[in-house]
């Protein structure tokens, strides 16, 4: 149905998509897998005609049902594309927060699709004979629509202006009904309520469902989904995947699914393309690729995916407790930042009670907003609004954050950053003060430990990649040899191969330095790979805590079971 031939796209500079050719069959789900910067999104945006004007298509052609959409060397035919965008192909974006208009009600936004395209689309699909398999599903609907149109025209002439207004009202009601139907179709149970909501009143998952409803309401032949689940929690992710599957089966449209997550691609796609540096390095049926990867890169990608095998060995012994958390509740002050503002206390962690032992990695898993970060901040003493007690049996704990771009001071060099904890320690406790030379030596030593060469010593964070920054972050946290390091989603912002390297680094450093980690993640597979024990958290409560194997084999709480699915 879609045919792309030798497509190359360049922005100012080198080509980011190089000689990409593929086809998407009717009703097929094609996955495009690759790390960030591999050109998968640019390919999809070019196909959709949404890529920015500064991109040049340097070679290749794109066909949609034998209709030439785009050819290299010719400017994009925007009028042609407008006929295709929406009724024939539509897109679901990654970020449900920004892809809906925050000032428009959700219902109106979905309805806009009908207002813009409905009539034209229906007219055209009558003219161009639909294919055999489409006839079955669309037959009734088309006949219906045609009837409605004829009727409408007749009545409009017959009854004059007032009658026409009546008719408009009816038409409006019909449109609303179709929107509500679409919203229900994507699993939004309270469609009536959602129709009148603004995007900010909905959760991320619901917003993504609305996006999908917008994409499928006109029954387009092709849906392009660019990382539709990346911004969502795991359990919601599962639901969205199921939904996409269901829609594909019901509407028989093709789906181009772009993701960096091989597990998702495996569950959803019929065929998979693997992209690297703008090239397609491998393509084939999903199971073939997973069972028998040909290319080196594909093998690397597949082995990097955190699975439920290859757990770290070294069973620890629970000897000495390092941090004891007893009956800890954490609160947040709301609206306290103005002169006469009233403060409202909000409880985000309820009665947490656990112990971190020396030399272990304790995994904390839960969805966003469940209180993981609040709990960690309370343990670190950054949040003072707590009840209960936290007892530390070692020096002050350190932290590694999720976002490697904001957790290093951008104005300083790597060497300075690595030495800063030592300097601070020296000022706090003069007995631990080190000479300039010792500090530098320690920093060099740590740089080697986190697997980076000497030449990075004088670089600034902006000159490093995300993975390298995260290495520096870890080095910075470990350089004072703290008893506990809290790692808050340290690998979530990284590509899957980098992720595997960082996890490996954390494991080896942990074994070498015997530091305890509280490892926070939303990804249960990552947690499985690094943790000795796991803690499951939901809505501020700790549901379950136990040995990793034990929890994975015999989950007690229904929520844990849901996570493990």
């Amino acid at each position: 149905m879609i045919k792309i031939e030798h497509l190359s796209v360049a922005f100012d500079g080198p080509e980011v998509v190089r000689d990409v050719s593929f086809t998407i069959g009717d009703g097929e789900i094609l996955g495009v897998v690759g790390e960030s910067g591999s050109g998968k999104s640019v390919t999809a945006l070019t196909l959709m005609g949404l890529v920015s004007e500064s991109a040049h298509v340097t070679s290749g052609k794109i066909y949609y049902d034998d209709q030439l959409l785009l050819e290299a060397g010719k400017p994009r035919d925007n009028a042609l594309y407008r006929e295709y965008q929406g009724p024939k192909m539509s897109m679901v974006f990654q970020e449900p927060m920004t892809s809906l208009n925050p000032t428009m009600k959700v219902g109106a936004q979905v309805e806009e699709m009908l207002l813009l395209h409905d009539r034209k689309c229906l007219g055209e699909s009558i003219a161009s004979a639909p294919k055999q398999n489409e006839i079955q599903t669309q037959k009734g609907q088309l006949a219906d629509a045609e009837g409605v149109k004829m009727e409408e025209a007749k009545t409009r002439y017959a009854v004059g202006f007032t009658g026409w207004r009546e008719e408009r009202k009816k038409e409006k009601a019909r449109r609303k009904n179709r929107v509500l139907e679409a919203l229900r179709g994507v699993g939004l149970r309270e469609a009536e309520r959602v129709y009148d909501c603004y995007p900010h009143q909905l959760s991320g998952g619901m917003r993504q469902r609305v996006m999908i409803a917008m994409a499928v309401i006109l029954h387009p032949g092709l849906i392009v989904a660019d990382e539709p689940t990346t911004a969502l929690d795991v359990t919601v992710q599962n639901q969205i995947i199921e939904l996409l599957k269901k829609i594909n089966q019901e509407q028989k449209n093709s789906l181009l699914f772009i993701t960096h997550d091989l597990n998702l691609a495996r569950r959803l796609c019929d065929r998979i393309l693997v992209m690297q540096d703008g090239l397609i390095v491998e393509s084939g049926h999903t199971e073939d690729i997973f069972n028998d990867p040909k290319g080196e890169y594909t093998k690397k990608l597949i082995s990097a995916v955190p699975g439920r095998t290859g757990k770290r060995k070294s069973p620890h012994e629970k000897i000495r407790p390092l941090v004891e958390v007893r009956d800890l509740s954490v609160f947040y002050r709301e609206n306290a930042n103005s002169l006469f503002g009233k403060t409202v206390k909000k409880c985000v962690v309820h009665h947490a009670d656990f112990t971190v032992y020396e030399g272990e990695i304790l995994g904390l898993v839960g969805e966003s907003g469940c209180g993981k970060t609040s709990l960690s901040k309370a343990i670190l003493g950054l949040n003072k609004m707590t009840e209960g007690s936290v007892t530390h049996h070692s020096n002050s704990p350190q932290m590694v954050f999720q976002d490697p771009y904001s957790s290093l001071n951008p104005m300083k060099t790597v060497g300075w950053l690595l030495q800063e904890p030592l300097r601070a320690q020296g000022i706090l406790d003069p007995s631990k003060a080190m000479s300039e030379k010792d500090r530098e030596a320690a920093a060099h030593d740590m740089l080697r430990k986190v697997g980076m060469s000497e030449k990075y010593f004088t670089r600034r964070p902006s000159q490093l990649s995300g993975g390298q920054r995260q290495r520096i972050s870890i080095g910075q946290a470990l350089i004072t040899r703290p008893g506990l390091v809290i790692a808050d989603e340290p690998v979530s912002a990284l590509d899957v191969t980098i992720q595997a390297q960082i996890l490996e680094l954390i494991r080896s450093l942990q074994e070498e330095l015997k530091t305890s980690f509280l490892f926070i993640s939303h990804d249960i597979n990552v947690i499985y790979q690094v943790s000795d024990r796991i803690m499951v958290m939901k809505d501020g409560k700790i549901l379950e805590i136990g040995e990793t194997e034990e929890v994975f084999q015999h989950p007690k709480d229904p929520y844990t079971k849901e996570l493990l699915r």
Partner: protein
Amino acid sequence: MKKFGAWFQKQNMYLLVGLLMTGLAVVLGILSFFWTPYGTTTMSVAERFHAPSLRHLFGTDNFGRDIFSRVMQGIGTTVIVSSLIVLISASAGILIGAVTGYFGGILDEVIMRITDAVNAFPSILLALVVISILGSGKQNVVLSLGIVFTPSYVRIVRSEFIRLRDSDFVCRARLMGVSKLRILFIHILPNIWSVFWVSVTIGFNNAILAESGMSYLGIGVQPPDASLGKMLSDAQGYLGRAPWYALAPGLTIVWIVLGFSLLSEGVRRKEEKKK
């Protein structure tokens, strides 16, 4: 020639022209302390109202003084006074803005309301009040305009500190046990330079204009010191007879302000390119 063209293309023209213009002005201003073509207070009845010529580049005024020499001295005064104004207001702005922005709370609220009040008055008017209390003179102009311009820096610095105080790297510095003072001035401060530099250059231009304005009103630099604003006000009685008398200091102010604007724009673009 072709080589020059290529070199020309690559240059940051804002920076280049800005540097040339301000550079020339600053050199003339500094030079005026040691040497001027004629004495700045040497009067001569015979030479009154000479039009610009090779002998007197900008002509002579109603006392027969060489306007070019006086403009040179005026530049010197203006640049030094404005620099001091910026120095005072910017350092006060950094101190107050950093503390209020980082710690927040009641102190922040109170100081912000005070800056709101200061901002509500036209700056010249407020400076007038200060001058009427302290008396006129160069140092009082510096002090009063320094106070008047402080709130704008406080606002900028404060908002940047608020933006950065909860950022991850500051949070980690706190965990390392870095002292508050060190966090404020060694961890956060370097990160606001690019924003701060732009406001400093804008503030410098405003200071030049305000100083000239005050001297024009007669409450700034006092005679016999030359100041560009003072010269303007002296010249307005002879606008028909000797237009060059007004044009020379006026165009000089335009020259300096334009040069400095170009310079700041050039620096901003350079910083952006770096990022």
